[in-house]
């Protein structure tokens, strides 16, 4: 009988059939044991595993990190931090050896930003916001789509603003969270360790001023009646820009604390923004890239050699050199002083998602096919 107890000590984790199976097969129970088994059966009916939401379950520990799909990479001081599918967070000091950091969620992670060498934030699917105070080693969840749905609704319920704007924001919130935490946060940018922004699908925009302790929805502080997808957010100089659908860029007006809409003349989606010196590069769908040299007022297209969507970019030098990467594994090198992008194919097909410059000579690139590094090519033609 003692053996029986040990065998079924973990009965809570078993289904009825496995309890029956194991006890029956291993012990060939005597009638008394059968009786006990029968008594256990009703209990085990309730032990069927309910589905555990990715938001409620820490990420699996995995090996071969560099082969997994990754979405973005950023520097926390000297440490590189990459994020990816199923809650993957990996850190590295050299770009070759990666160590997994425990993640409190299994949600697909999409973007990250470290305003200081220690403090950083990750956003991703299911509306998660994760925060680290130790350069990416440990992470805690600050917000997710379920909490956001409740809190944002509460927030607007107690907010005294123009009724029309309030109604628009409230209907957007109820629409966006109707299906639960189904929408992703697509990008995050912090001005410093306290103040930061997150953006996401269907106009999702939230702001914190206390390092992410509380997040305030800003749907009423952006000219986005159509609820365009907000794909990326980036501070350039003193200004903050959002890259959105339909060629729209939003810029934060310091006086009004509102994001105001700028039409760039492009009608596709922008997936990212890059500050190069005083210039801003917006890039996105079908290989489109636009540049503004006057803080977003006027935009001009860059000559792109490919129609593959551009997904990420990085500055390479103080002389205005930058690189954009696309969804086919190409790198497009450019300089803020020219209108031409030069294409260089990478090491074979991969869907590039993120890029940082290691030392001006090597690039560390994340892709859905894994992490890889590529050589920087200096631009042959400069204006």
């Amino acid at each position, binding site marked *: 009988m003692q053996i029986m107890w040990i065998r079924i000590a973990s009965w809570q984790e078993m289904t009825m059939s496995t309890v029956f199976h194991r006890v029956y097969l291993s012990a060939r129970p005597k009638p008394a044991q059968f009786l006990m088994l029968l008594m256990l059966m009703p209990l085990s009916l309730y032990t069927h595993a309910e589905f555990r939401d990715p938001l409620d379950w820490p990420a699996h520990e995995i090996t071969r990190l560099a082969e997994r799909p990754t979405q973005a990479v950023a520097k926390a001081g000297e440490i590189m931090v990459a994020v990816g599918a199923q809650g993957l967070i990996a850190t590295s000091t050299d770009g070759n050896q990666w160590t997994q950091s425990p993640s409190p969620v299994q949600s697909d992670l999409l973007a990250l930003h470290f305003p200081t060498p220690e403090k950083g934030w990750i956003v991703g699917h299911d509306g998660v916001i994760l925060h680290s105070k130790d350069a990416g080693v440990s992470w805690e969840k600050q917000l997710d789509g379920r909490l956001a749905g409740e809190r944002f609704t509460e927030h607007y319920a107690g907010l005294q603003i123009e009724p029309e704007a309030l109604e628009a924001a409230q209907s957007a919130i109820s629409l966006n969270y109707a299906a639960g935490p189904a929408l992703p946060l697509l990008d995050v940018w912090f001005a410093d360790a306290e103040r930061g922004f997150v953006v996401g699908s269907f106009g999702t925009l939230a702001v914190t001023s206390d390092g992410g302790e509380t997040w305030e929805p800003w749907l009423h502080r952006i000219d986005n009646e159509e609820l365009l997808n907000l794909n990326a957010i980036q501070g350039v100089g003193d200004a903050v820009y959002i890259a959105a659908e339909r060629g729209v860029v939003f810029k934060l007006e310091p006086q009004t604390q509102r994001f105001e809409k700028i039409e760039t003349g492009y009608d596709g989606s922008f997936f990212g923004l890059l500050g190069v010196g005083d210039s801003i590069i917006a890039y996105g769908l079908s290989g489109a890239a636009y540049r503004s040299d006057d803080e977003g007022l006027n935009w001009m297209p860059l000559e792109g050699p490919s129609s593959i969507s551009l997904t990420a970019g990085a500055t390479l030098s103080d002389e205005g050199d930058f690189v954009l990467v696309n*969804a086919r594994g190409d790198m497009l090198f450019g300089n803020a002083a020219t209108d031409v992008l030069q294409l260089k194919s990478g090491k074979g097909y991969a869907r590039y998602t993120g890029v940082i410059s290691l030392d001006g000579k090597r690039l560390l690139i994340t892709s859905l096919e894994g992490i890889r590094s590529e050589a920087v090519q200096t631009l042959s033609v400069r204006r």
Partner: protein
Amino acid sequence: MKQIIKNPDMPVISNPSEFDRSTGGLIERLVFNHRTLLMTLCLFITLALSFFAVRLPMKVSFEDMMPQSHEFIRNYMEHAGELKGLGNSVRIVVSNKDGDIYDAEYLNTLREINDEVFLIPGVDRSFMKSLWMPVVRWTEITADGYQGGSVMPDSFDGSEQSIEKLRRNIGRAGIAGSLVSNDHRSSMLFVPLVDSDPTTGDTLDYRAFRDQIEGLKRFEEQGVTIHVIGFAQLVGDLIRGLGQVLNYFLLAALITVAIIRLYTGCWRSTLLVTGCSAVAVVWQLGVMQIAGFALDPYSILVPFLIFAIGVSHGSQKMNGVTQDIARGTHKYVAARYTFRRLFLAGLTALLANAVGFAVLAVIDIPVIRGLAAAASIGVGVLIFTNLILLPVLLSYTGVRKSRNIDADGEQKIHPVIRWFGGFTDRRRAAGVLIFTAIFTAGAFAVSLNIQIGDLDPGAPELRADSEYNRDNAYITSHYQLSSDQFAVIVSTPPQGLINYETLWEMERLEQILRELPGVQTTVSAASLARRYTSAGFEGSLKWETINRDPFVIQDALNTVYDSNPEMFNDGRSVAPVVAFLSDHKAETLTGLVEAVEAFAAEHNTPERQFLLAAGSSGIEAATNIAVKKANVTMLLYVYASVILLCFITFRSWRAVVSAVIPLVVTTIFCEALMVILGIGVKVATLPVVALGVGIGVDYALYLLTMHLVFYRRGYSVREAYLAALGSTGKVVALIGITLSAAVITWAWSPIKFQADMGILLAFMFLWNMLGALIIVPSLMTFLMPDRKTAEVQQPLHSQVREEQTRSHQPLARAS
């Protein structure tokens, strides 16, 4: 046995008319008093059965090698119809001898091959894949959703441009490593097969299929090389191998004839003994056909065994008759005496064989059951042909007088026999036993390392250097996705796959499987759906995810179905999670099974079941589990039946112990040998121990029966043993050598498992023989020491006295 004890002096009768036909048991009278009738009957039966025997079909089936009642197999059978990519299939790789696949001539040849394969009966055309099949598509996610098309451009005309287009499509389709080799010098035709034709209902004719695939080799003249792997090809190779096995049968028969002839120096008796055994084989095959069995690569070995066992028993009869005739007894009387002396021992031995083989039927794998049935039928037949027909035939023909008998009809004690008799010396016996104990302990320690399952890569049924395994090695080294696939079956209610939770759970399982040793990569509808989700979001890579919205999931799955229809069924209720393995070692498979069982225990719900198993490796995992379990069960049953039969025969537990211990020693040695030779416990080696023990006990039965007869008459151990050696013992030695020589010919079989069986059986036969001749007397020396009067039954008292007075020459009365 009773008769011999009551009539220890079967008198020498040289004139058959002086013989009292009413003596002997009922069976003896029945047989010998109606000789003519019996002969006619046997002739008639032989003719009739040979008519059936030639009609015995040869059959190899995918499913017959699976443990039918195992949970994994039942799960697989239940869902087999829904799992298209994981059933029976062949992969044909066509490589360009000089250059890569982007070559108009190569592509043209590939098209010809493709068209020919497409038309072969049994091919499941809607799921066949190759560069020339329109179902092989590329997809690209763009701003407007996704676009796609056949990898082979519709307008392909062999021009530079269209080849360039193909090259790009191959890149976009991501089929490098699966349908196109890593080095782009070859491409694959993936050919799923239907086990039975849906229109005609005919089952797949493997031999015809293989012949047609073999016919493709003519394209090799067009500058390509063709490699084929897959079960159908394997079976074809096995069937071809079976043809060669017949040569080994002839060789074995010739060896047997040669050895017997050498021993007896008499053609008449040699041909009678082998002839009767051949008749037994004919009967066996005929009965199998009538009973509805077929020959498969396993049961084809049974006729060998039956022949060899037949020779074994036949030689005992022949030897008895020879000895009687040598003393001047008339051949008719000699045959009857021999029958009287040995029928019961022979019957018990054959029944022990039959039971030993029948026990194999506890293993629920159809090929093993077929083997068990074939062997049991064969042994049953031997009772008639070699225990009854042969003595009757000998009563007609007689034998040539043996050279071993001197003028006054007394047999000399051969020096070899005298040497073996020395094992009844207490000191030598003790030495033997200590030596055996030490060696057995050592062998036991080695045998603990025995592996379950197949240890080598490729098809373990064939040799490593066979064409099939070379093709397999080529394909493994040039393609990413191995053919060792382990699949978990996900089962839900209809449309149940269109569910966020289900897809997430499938991905979780993939994540766990990928971490296991031996897993190269995994694939499932979930990980493919993840990829296609972004199509609905302007191709944004950030949307490569599994979304909670059922409409998004449905769209993604529809796209998956377009390009990978084998990843789930029409009803969206059954889908495999496939792990590609780098090997199929039992350790790897056990790791997978344990991980999946743990996952299922934690994640299964009534609506969402993760079930083991499908795919070649999934089935192998089930087989390994069944084999491991059966190995123990079978040993228990075999030994239980052998012990029981020995006890019925000997009525002495000491004799039973003496008979069984050598068998146990051999069994342990055999397992140690398997470890040393790198042979795992598998379907093919499972029957070896049962056969080895079943046949091995014969030796002890014949030897100890005679030993006990003399011993109970009051002979000393040494005298009894020498007497037993002189009558049945030397034939035991002869038979051990003959059987081993016959089965060792299998070692040259192109079929690896037959070779393994041959080596192991030869070892067991030889070792059992040595055990019977050396360990048995050593054990008897201690277990049944000389006690001249104690154990002798009362009615025999007077005879014993009489014997003792003449004991200076015991062998005179021995037989």
